[in-house]
């Protein structure tokens, strides 16, 4: 159950709009169903359409790049703890003007995964959040489930409930958590190369190259992506074969290595449910292991290990343990 509700956020938005601090806000708009929330820009006129529920997982940091360019006035944005890391990372990269944003930190108890809910029934009509989640269905009756079981993967392994950037905070600030987010990466690493290959072949072959993971990623902010550039030699609009799938996903993950804050948006938006965060987390874990712990976005202005070096770094041959499984 989320600690804060729609009314609290609307009251806060009204207060700031009336005071003239901001002239618009980024928020979530209701869709046909409870889980169909979509990011939208609101002004005082259409604030009635604003919703907030446990499906409002979208990371607004990336939206700020386009939104802050539209007006000199400030835009109000509500940021969950994980969003604030992306917010800082984008500031580090000078992607938007901090002066044009009024960030309000909101606590988060984890967002629900609609795929897990659909796994319980194929005719879900509405979802009511709470300690136990009530799911109304069309002809399966009412289903209840523990909230824990319906949480998105990224929320189950939440890395931090602490806001690292905000102008104002609603509620209490949390702490950086001791998460188990690398457990799955470690499990994969412990497999044999053949098993790993089979695992990824199975996952990546589902890719339809919709580019949603790239489009939603707060770290993917190039004006022109290599995958859209006909001169890059990488442009390809369809996952034509196995190689293309692997190429896209390796390069996508590599391009955000050191800048990925592990917000988990890539996996959330993937229509094929590919665990893309496992690729990003592999890079994060390697960077932590090889070059010291580094959390992208924890502070503004930090230098990512991939654009840095020391004279006694480990050799690439040592990075891959060549003796084991050989």
């Amino acid at each position, binding site marked *: 159950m989320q600690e804060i509700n729609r009314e609290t956020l609307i009251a806060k938005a009204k207060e700031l709009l009336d005071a003239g601090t901001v002239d618009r806000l980024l928020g979530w708009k209701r869709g046909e169903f409870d889980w169909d929330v979509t990011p939208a820009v609101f002004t005082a006129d259409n604030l009635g359409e604003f919703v907030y529920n446990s499906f409002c997982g979208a990371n607004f940091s990336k939206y700020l790049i386009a939104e802050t360019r539209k007006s000199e006035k400030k835009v109000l944005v509500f940021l969950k703890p994980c969003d604030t890391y992306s917010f800082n990372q984008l500031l580090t990269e000078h992607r938007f003007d901090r002066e044009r944003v009024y960030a309000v930190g909101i606590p988060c108890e984890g967002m629900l995964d609609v795929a897990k809910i659909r796994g319980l029934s194929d005719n879900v009509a509405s979802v009511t959040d709470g300690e136990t989640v009530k799911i109304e269905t069309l002809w399966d009756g009412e289903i209840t489930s523990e909230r824990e079981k319906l949480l998105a993967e990224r929320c189950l392994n939440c890395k931090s409930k602490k806001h690292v950037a905000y102008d104002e905070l609603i509620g209490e600030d949390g702490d950086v958590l001791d998460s188990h987010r690398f457990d799955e990466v470690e499990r994969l690493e412990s497999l044999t190369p053949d098993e790993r290959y089979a695992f990824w072949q199975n996952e990546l072959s589902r890719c339809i190259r919709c580019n949603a993971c790239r489009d939603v990623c707060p770290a993917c902010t190039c004006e022109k992506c290599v995958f859209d550039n006909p001169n890059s030699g990488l442009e390809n609009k369809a996952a034509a074969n196995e190689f293309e799938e692997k190429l896209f996903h390796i390069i996508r993950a*590599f391009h955000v290595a050191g800048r990925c804050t592990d917000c988990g948006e890539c996996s959330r938006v993937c229509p094929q449910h590919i665990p893309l965060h496992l690729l990003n987390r592999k890079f994060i874990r390697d960077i932590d292991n090889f070059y010291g712990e580094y959390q992208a976005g924890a502070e503004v202005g930090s230098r990512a290990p991939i654009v840095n070096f020391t004279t006694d*770094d480990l050799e*690439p041959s040592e990075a891959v343990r060549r003796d084991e499984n050989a």
Partner: protein
Amino acid sequence: MQVTEYKPLIVAFCCNWCSYAGADLAGNNRLAYPADVKIIRVPCSCRVNPSFILRAFQRGADGVILCGCHPGDCHYTTGNYYTRRRMALLFSMLDYLGIERERTRVEWVSAAEGAKFAATMNDFVGKVAALGPNKRLEDLRCKK
């Protein structure tokens, strides 16, 4: 059916200042290394983008080796330090995806190390030949 001996195709990215000159020296000294190694000269080892390596595999390479100046000796002072971090992460990722780890390598070869260049290539070609053709990162559309 004609049976031919399998010969791996190796792409070697060599930096202009050290390794390429090292390959030259190997030639001058008449040190033999397999003709399966195709050298691509790059201004600095850090010019090599991870996608170059993947594209080499796509276009039919069975192994890719990247040669640069010894750390500290880069013509551009620090280029190969970045290469070292980048390739450590890339190779670790390829390994994570189950690609054979012997197919990729980074070696530091100076302009004076013609013998090391030839020995490295002989060793690398031998290891890749033992693995056989690259199946896990091949692109069937690029097959002749």
